[in-house]
């Protein structure tokens, strides 16, 4: 490992830098993923979604992109969990009166819990579609698979809960990450305050799919 990377990983600031960069790259992935999924709404028979899915699956670089995503998730989760454990250790004895000065939010105080719920969601999601797709083989088209999975038992509700947690996670994350990266300035801060609404857009956008399949198809 080069010394600069070692230095970054052994420092509190470095760990936060990488948590923030990996987190923001994951947000970019989510934006692209949501945009692609919106083809679900293009027609009733799912042909738009299926041809979009085919476009992605036929790209020879797909395994590389999947590996990249896996690395981003593992780095983000590993560092975030480590940072959280260190933070708990830094305050071993609790105050008898729990109080604050009104700056921390539900969203900022629950990052590890919303993160872990998102992780649970991810495992279910990959089971449903990445592994489910392999099991279905060439025969089934993806739209039919998505439709049947997202109408099955508690699955759609688990998706809605997962996306609610994602919304809370990103509401703080989108504000926090730029401060971590040092990009603070009165003008920039105004922009970040607006950008954090992307958290709401992503959460509602993704949560709309299970609700759509459950109630409108």
């Amino acid at each position, binding site marked *: 490992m080069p010394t600069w990377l070692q230095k970054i990983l052994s420092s509190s600031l470095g760990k936060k830098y990488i948590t923030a960069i990996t987190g923001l790259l994951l947000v970019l992935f989510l934006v692209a993923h949501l945009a692609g999924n919106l083809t679900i709404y293009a027609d009733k028979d799912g042909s738009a979604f299926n041809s979009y899915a085919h476009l992605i699956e036929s790209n020879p670089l797909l395994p590389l992109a999947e590996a990249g995503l896996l690395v981003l998730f593992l780095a983000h989760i590993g560092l975030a969990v480590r940072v959280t454990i260190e*933070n708990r250790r*830094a305050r071993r004895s609790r105050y008898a009166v729990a109080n604050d000065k*009104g*700056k921390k939010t539900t969203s900022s105080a629950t990052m590890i819990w919303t993160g872990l719920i998102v992780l649970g969601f991810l495992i279910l999601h990959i089971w449903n579609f990445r592994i489910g797709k392999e099991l279905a083989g060439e025969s089934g088209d993806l739209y039919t698979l998505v439709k049947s999975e997202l109408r099955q038992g508690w699955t759609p509700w688990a998706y809605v809960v997962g996306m609610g947690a994602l919304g809370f996670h990103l509401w703080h994350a989108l504000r926090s990450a730029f401060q971590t990266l040092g990009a*603070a300035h009165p003008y920039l801060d105004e922009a970040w305050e607006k950008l954090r609404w992307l958290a709401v857009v992503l959460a509602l956008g993704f949560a709309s799919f299970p609700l759509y399949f459950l109630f409108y198809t």
Partner: protein
Amino acid sequence: MSESMHITLNVWRQKNAQEEGRLEAHACDVSPDMSFLEVLDVLNDKLVSEGKEAIAFEHDCREGICGSCSLVLNGQAHGPHKNTTTCQLHMRSFKSGDNITVEPFRAAAFPVLKDLVVDRSAFDRIQQSGGYVSVNTGSAPAANAVLVPKDDADSAMDAAQCIGCGACVAACPNASAMLFVSAKIAHLGLLPQGQPERKKRALAMVSAMDREGFGNCSNHFECGAACPKGISVANIARLNRDWLGAVLTEREERKDQGD
């Protein structure tokens, strides 16, 4: 004198660093014009006259400039007000009948020594690791020989207001010292006199901070709200920038030195 108030103090008592502490209730009649520390003085007089041990707490200037006083009142570092140290907090900020829980700053890096006194020498060690500038001594330099842009001077002065009290650590859910360190980085790093050691300072102070066992910054921003000197969390973003720049360019510097 204005009417007296009846309050109950639940004070943290702890014999020493090893033993467990507990809260101890004391009923007090106080004047609304008393400062919070004066209430503790009066209570201590009473305890001593009863042959009991006085409550240990730290104080020095009692005018909000030395950073000695600490205390967490009802879960808030330095009490409920903005930009106010405990020594400058007056009892008129409370109501008669109030219960006030008085605790020491809590952080693994600030161990409790006795009652309300914590060991804040971790801040001294961080400061010694790089919170200084080197200057030539001798005859005084000509005034204005070094030009400082007004905006930079203002921001440096704002950061220089930090009195090192540690309320940022006490208020942070992670007991992080980022606001303190960032104030020193901004105070010195914004001025021309601080440039030669700027990179070394950022690296050394962050390493020293990590060694002391403070938490990481999660950007809750509780520190800035609790700071009695109103130090801005924008300094933390500056620290983050300065530190990354120093890490990424440090090797080149060493090469220049033939290392």
